[in-house]
């Protein structure tokens, strides 16, 4: 009895919120807590994780329902939405619009003789032979005819993109790992370095 009487600790609203947060984030479904007079019963909703556990924002936005799918009426309006940063990229990739130019796309005065290096295939563009490896080429670098300048991955096959002739890479128009369309311009090659330097 003495022990019971000692229990005068009162849980503040904040404490309850803290407990709820912990339960919400944990894999626990129910909590029954009794301290003295205080009794707390927490039961999580069926199956769906609590609001704190999963971002429900932007339902129907970029990561929304696919047309033609019929969500059951009872289904919670929860969408799997990748991180916000990823979403913007999604929109670009999904519509297969020309991906944005590499950071700080420079307005280089193009020589009349500039050559566009295009991809013959649709796929994913890579600037380097392997993740983390140095890129094949950088802007302003001299390349020989036949030098590999990029990879376009098509159906898990790596296709090398080669410089059609000797020259200086003036622009790289696609960011690493972006989606490219068939015939899209990847890089601008200046085959007449001497003239361009002036």
């Amino acid at each position, binding site marked *: 009895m003495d022990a019971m009487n000692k229990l005068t600790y009162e849980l503040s609203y904040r404490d309850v919120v803290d407990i709820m947060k912990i339960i919400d984030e944990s894999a626990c479904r129910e909590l029954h807590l009794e*301290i003295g007079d205080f009794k707390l019963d927490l039961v999580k909703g069926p199956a769906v994780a609590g609001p704190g556990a*999963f971002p429900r924002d932007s339902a129907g936005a970029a*990561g929304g329902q696919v047309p033609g*799918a019929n969500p059951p009426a009872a289904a919670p309006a929860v969408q799997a939405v990748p991180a916000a940063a990823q979403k913007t*990229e999604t929109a670009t990739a999904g519509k297969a619009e020309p991906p944005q130019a590499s950071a700080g796309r420079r307005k280089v005065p193009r020589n009349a003789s500039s050559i566009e290096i295009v991809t013959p295939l649709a796929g994913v563009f890579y600037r380097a032979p392997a993740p983390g490896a140095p890129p094949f080429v950088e802007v302003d670098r001299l390349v020989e005819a036949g030098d590999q300048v990029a990879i376009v991955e098509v159906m898990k096959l790596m296709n090398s993109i080669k410089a059609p002739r000797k020259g200086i890479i003036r622009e790289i128009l696609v960011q690493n790992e972006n989606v490219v369309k068939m015939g899209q311009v990847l890089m601008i090659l200046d085959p007449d370095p001497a003239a361009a330097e002036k």
Partner: protein
Amino acid sequence: MESQEYSHALSLIAWMKESRLESLHLRMGSLILDLKRQGRDQGESRRPGKIRSVLVANRGEIAVRVIRACRELGIEAIAAVSEADRESLPAKMADRVLCIGPAQAKKSYLDIPTVVQAALGAGASAVHPGYGFLAERPDFADACAKQGLIFIGPRPLHIRQMGDKLFAREMASSLDIPVIPGSRLVRNLQEAAQFAEKTGYPLLLKAAAGGGGRGMKILQGPEELQCLFNEASAEAGAAFGDDRLYVERYVPNARHIEVQVLGDSHGNIIHLFERDCSLQRRYQKVLEESPSTVLSPDQRQAVCEAALLIARRIRYESAGTVEFILDQDSGRFYFLEMNTRIQVEHPVTEMVTGLDLIKEQIRIAGGEPLGYSQADITTRGHAIECRINAESPENQFAPSPGRITKWQTPDAPLVRVDSHCYAGYVVPPFYDSLLAKIIVHGKDRREAIERMQTALSHFRIAGVETTIPLHRRILTDEAYRAGKINTGWLEKVFLQNG
């Protein structure tokens, strides 16, 4: 004192979160703590009927296959698709669809946190990984378990153990199952050279973390050693983040024989006999069949028993495949590796045994015991599968993505087509080139071959190039029909002859 109890309660809850405990009931003085875990992991959560909805974390034909199995079991199927797959058949068939990111697999199908969040957000009770992508990623299986999601596949430990090809090899060896004479691990060129001197050429260099032929090189002589060792090591490092290599004797006249196994969470393990997958191009299987024409009854029993031994040793759960190499010159077989997933060619086994392997996988993950004992498993007739890829066999197998303008599948008895394609579907360039698997059953191999030929001649696809012409040529080839082939035959003999 009382605030101490309160903080105890809090730390217990936090600890419980990290622990593997199923439930916690505590009365400490006046403190009563009653915690129950939501997730899988232990007994209770693996009870039958636990799985009400499945997130299909894959694409293509296997996603369609899983959705069909869910339908038959009365389970809701939720498709997780990339931006590029919004119009795909799985997206149209599933009860619900979630978009999980951009076309590039790395940012969608391979993104573990996103897939797990999708499953949680959709309220799925389980995740089916299909094959490829996250199917053999133990960290994904771990992430699912941690969030209370049932991973429809083996336990993470099984994936880890069998994913280490050297571990698997040593385990097989310890069970007196023959393995190809090989060194344990070659740390450098010098060790590889020493091994080569002892064993002789040809040799096979393989990645310890292996798979899909990456990091795999055949060495014909000592002059190739240095160059190919470095190449293999670099390839393995890039593909698996693990550049450990091992070297073994190369078996030139080999058959690829694999045994399908099923294990449940109650310790029951059965085998479903073998598949012969000796027709390969660049280590990718092209055509598979069951039963194998080259195994004697004794050899068949021996490989199936060996597969069971390995599965039993780790108390394997779910569907798995134990692969062997049969040396046709010596008649000996050797353990190769175990794949801890459902395989592309699983329908071949389904056709001869009558079992539905995907449904079995789901039932097992739900905690149900196997509905079959070993004695219940028999095979009937012969089954063949042809993989139809969007590739041009006339043009060095160049990939051929694009819009399918015509898609007419053969419609005949005992012919099955597993596919995600339809007329008007655009085959995206971002994923593998598999368009369809066509599987036939016949009372014997001869009938199966005839049936496949007829079926292929009625399979009409336009808009993309396919490997159908290749299969039609293989099926008429004398050597193939006589069963006089090995794992190198397709590439080194058949395709060389044009």
